[in-house]
């Protein structure tokens, strides 16, 4: 027996919400970054679920694109974070607000 589709969707929604809320309330840049990854993968899960439910390979192939983009994003994002921490040891996201209008 297999788990029915809506469960997967519910799990994905919960993961996405955790990611979104975490992004909004945490100040640690690394944690915020992980939240973004959580949200991306929640979406990936949704895609895969629908691919199975609707029997459409397109959903699965989109996931590969998302994975690639996420990997690239991780590289850039981590690069930025590392360079920020090089300048100051304990930075939060709110400390980096030089571009305010």
């Amino acid at each position, binding site marked *: 027996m297999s788990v029915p589709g809506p469960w997967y969707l519910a799990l994905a929604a919960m993961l996405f919400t955790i990611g*979104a809320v975490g992004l*909004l*309330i945490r100040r640690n840049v690394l944690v915020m970054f992980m939240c973004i990854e959580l949200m991306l993968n929640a979406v990936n899960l949704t895609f895969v679920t629908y691919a199975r439910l609707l029997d459409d390979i397109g959903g699965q192939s989109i996931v590969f694109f998302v994975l690639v983009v996420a990997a690239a994003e991780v590289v850039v994002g981590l690069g930025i974070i590392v360079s920020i921490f090089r300048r100051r040891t304990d930075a939060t*996201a*709110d400390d*980096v607000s*030089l*571009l*305010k*209008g």
Partner: protein
Amino acid sequence: MVEAVWLIPALPLLGFVVLLAFGRRLGDPRAGYVATAMMVGAFLVTLVVFAGLLGEDGEHRSVTQHLFSWIPSGGLRVEAGLLVDPLSVTMALFVTGVGALIHLYSIGYMHGDERYHQFFVYLNLFAFSMLVLVLADSFLLTFLGWEGVGACSYFLISFWFERPTAAVAGKKAFVTNRIGDFGFMLAMFLIFATFGTLQYTEVFGASEELREGTATAIALLLFLGAVGKSAQLPLYVWLPDAMEGPTPVSALIHAATMVTAGVFLMVRVNPILDLAPDALTLIAVVGAATALFAATIACAQNDIKKVLAYSTVSQLGYMFLAVGSGAYAAAIFHMVTHAFFKALLFLGAGSVIHGMHDEQDMKRMGGLKKWMPITSITFIVGWLAIAGVPPFAGFWSKDDILINAWEKSPALWLVGLVTALLTAYYMSRQVFLVFYGGERWRKAAQPESPAGAKVGPEHEPVAAAADGHGKPAAAAAAHGAHGDFKPHESPWVMALPLVVLAALAALGGLLNLPFSDYLHLEHWLEPVYGERIHHLTSGSGTKWALLLITTGAALAGIGIAYLIFLRHKVREAAVEPRVLQRAWYADELYRGTVEAPGRALSDGAAAFDRRVIDGAVNGIGALVRAGGSRLRTVQTGFVRNYALGVAGGAVAVLAYVLARSA
């Protein structure tokens, strides 16, 4: 020989180009000699063309020389060509002849000026424009010259633009002339709409079919142009102010040539005027009114050049009176003699100003006859000529005009007669004030001393002034800015033109003697107006009576001036009322009626520009700036704020989609 006509305007143009390129290097006085040589050359070519034209029969004395296609544009082709006929050659003869003399005179007069070469650049450009004006074969090419002389007039009036009065005078002349040019342009539009061409020969060939209304409209619009250029009422105001320019300019442009362009134009378009009798009457009335009006003002001016300026306005009025009476030959005759004697008078006045070290107030002159013999003798010839004393030139031409005016209307004749008397009076006043009487400049040289004060003890005796050397230092100092002041005669380059012009002013009447069948000028000009000229109908008795009355008026004017200014029978101030000194308050009137509303209108437009147009532009700028400064607070720099915004936005979009699909 007539084919050489293109050289006439080309030589001054060449001079203009050469002086423009090398004038500064040529310097003072060689630039002047180059310019003068060009004018003499143009005069000689004109003589050749004149001789060539004399060789033709009467009917063939109108040759058009095609130069080039000026504006080839599809169906419209405007050709540039020169029309050689008795009228244009007559004009070209005296423009180049008098012009050459005045160029020569300028060599001496402008000596030592900072912009010496530039003066001759303008002078040659003027001569070129004037010759294009008179030799053109179409209205459009005439208009080109017309605008050219206007521009040169502007340059030369404000030649000494460091003086604010000169700059203002130039501007005044330019603006006033625009009103006339506007009339000229409208006339050209109307002519082109009616005839489809602007060539003189084609227009005049087809003018028979012109309706009277159209003819009157064209004539009046062209007359408006002439009124502006020839300084007639009510657009004469620029000419007296134009005396701010150097004196040779006043002689050449504002007496002898440019201001007669209006009269020339009227004579040129006589086939159209002939169809518009109402316009002719108006021209005669305006001319007579201007003649009298300007003559009254001239009676009370103290500036030696202002008198001559108003006199010029007045004499131009005579010419228009002649045109209005249908006496085209008389108009041209007076134009030529006037060019001789008025150029002479202006150059003489320039010589006086030169000799008096830039003094122009006649009340500070007097007794100059002894000091400036050549100037005074030639000036006296000019005076007798303009006053109308027989047998000098002005007598014949003025008499010719007055007889024609008598046959047009005795009222016009009477105005002309009074003007003749006034002319004799104010010119005599000028001669007596400048060349005769006491040597008032001895007192005037001391600026502080009130007029009529006793000669102070510090003034040297006359004998000491005569030798000019070895004067006591105290006496020299008493003369203030004038230093060792002594009027002196001018150099030969200035004296020679005076002598030549004096000879012409004395003998110019021979061009067109009445009372004989030998009417040179009238017969010579016949191809221009044919049968359209007014033929005198009066008997010889009437002619003699009018002649005697005119001569009597001239002598009476001289006599009155003699009694007042040499015998002092009447106080001078009594005959120079303030209203005449201020030229009937014409400038004040114009200031009130034209300048003040114009200024108010401009102020209004400026306020509209400042408040409404600038207001709109600045308002939009202020709006964007205010909006931006509000909006920029949104950009906090906190990444989580943006994330909240993105999340909130996504939620809102989702809610909207759900609400729609529900």
